[in-house]
């Protein structure tokens, strides 16, 4: 309740920053659910920025937004690096390495059945 009132009083940049900030908080615990939820917040931020018209004196607000965006970007990259690294560890443990030394990726399981 208080949040929506506060957002209602903000301009487009302020609303975008609040949405990116919400996304950033969710990305601190990057589960599949929180990643999906944070994407929705980021879309809201994009929507708010579409309404933005350049105005003098907005530098500080824009700088704050830039900082939030860069933190959110770092968290997305951090989560991606963690999970891709983990995937490499798991693939290596499960399938070993390719001839070129890269972790082997498990291929799809194919089965055939003969009837009659």
């Amino acid at each position: 309740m208080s949040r929506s009132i506060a957002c209602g009083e903000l301009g487009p940049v302020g609303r975008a920053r609040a949405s990116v900030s919400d996304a950033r908080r969710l990305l601190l615990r990057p589960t599949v659910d929180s990643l999906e939820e944070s994407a929705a917040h980021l879309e809201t931020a994009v929507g708010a920025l579409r309404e933005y018209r350049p105005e003098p004196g907005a530098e500080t607000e824009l700088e704050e937004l830039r900082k939030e965006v860069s933190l959110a970007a770092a968290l997305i990259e951090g989560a991606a690096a963690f999970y891709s690294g983990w995937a490499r560890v798991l693939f290596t443990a499960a399938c070993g390495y390719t001839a070129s030394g890269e972790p082997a990726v498990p291929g799809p399981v194919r089965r055939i059945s003969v009837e009659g």
Partner: protein
Amino acid sequence: MSGLFGALRASANSLHILEYSLATVQNNVLNASTPGYAKQRLLPLPAPFVPEQGLPGGIVPGQVQSLRSEYAERSVRQETHLWAHFDQFSKDLAKIERLFDISGQSGIPGALNKLFQSFSAWSLAPNDLVPRREVIDRATEAAAQFAETAASLNTTSTVLDQQIREAVETINNLASSIRDLNVQMQRDHHARSDPSLDARLHATLENLAEYTDFTALFQPDGTVTILMGGQVPLVIGVRQYRIEPEFAGSETRILDSDGKDVTAQAATGRLGAMLELKNTVLPSYMSELNRLAASLADDVNAMLAAGLDTNGNPGAPLFAYDSADEAASTLRVTNITPDQLAAAAPDAPLGNANALALAGLATAPRLDGLSYTAYYGRLAATIGQVLHGSRSNRDTHEQLLLQSRSIRDEISAVSLDEEAARLIELQRAYEATARVIVILNELTQTTIDMMR
């Protein structure tokens, strides 16, 4: 009949396992806030099921397994040393930044402004004693400001050395704790699966990560090898290799147990930040300050020497310093007397041309195309920008550290909600098994009674 007894035995085994599982849950709950603890789970194993041979199946207790992920632990340690590096760098650089005033009202820029104003006032009354004395007073003040700032930078350098000594001692103490744990692991085979030792080891590794980057290699004998910067051994098996700081000369170095310079392997973490400030950042700021002080002194002295004093003699030098690489700390005013200041140009004795030229130094490009105050401003701005960048990196890595801890905790930290749910699940299984035993017991008794 053997079937009934077998079933009774299998159910009793189940109760036994449930008891173990309850003990595991209890241990998890008690250690919920123990630093470094990872939750444990009892893995039941299927028992052999061959009824004709009297093997009733069911489950038997397997190993108690830790849910710790070394990959997640390493990720936390990686972010810990990066965050700690920028945190330490920001804290120490903020102390240096305070020495460089940019308002122009105090410190070196304030003193320079007053000196140039005194030159300007002197040019209006070139042969009066009062403005001449004012020039010498303002020059004394400017020299004192340079010396004070240089002394503060030197004090900061000494404080950094003390911090480096303490950080190295902390690293050695933490390495010693890891060595002690290794001794226990090697001596007692059961210690390798002891969750309390495992928790202590991981809490110690996380503390160590604050101070320096390292690689932890887990060995088959249960010990862990610690290599600082991936290369310098701190602990191998039951042996510790101490590192030591060396403060010879202006540069502080880190030496390994053989006395070899391994400073490059201690580049990150709190220790790395202190070394960077001590060996690279501070000397560069001091060098800029020395350049400014030497250039100001040389220019003013050269201009005075090119003019004439009130007696028609070439002007005496106003400033002196010992050497270019310590110009700021040794800058001082000579024993010059007011009448020895050269206000006039050689072609116009008793005039003010030289004093005017000296006043013009306030805006004249002298260093890298900048005036003295602009050069100083550039130095102060550079420090501010480096500090801003460092704080920004600290904030980013603080968030990444929170994220990596959250992922790690998701995998291995004790969740009281989860343990409570597990407890209820075990309680139900316990009740169900106990009920089966009661029924089986009654059935067995009935069968025995029937046979009588």
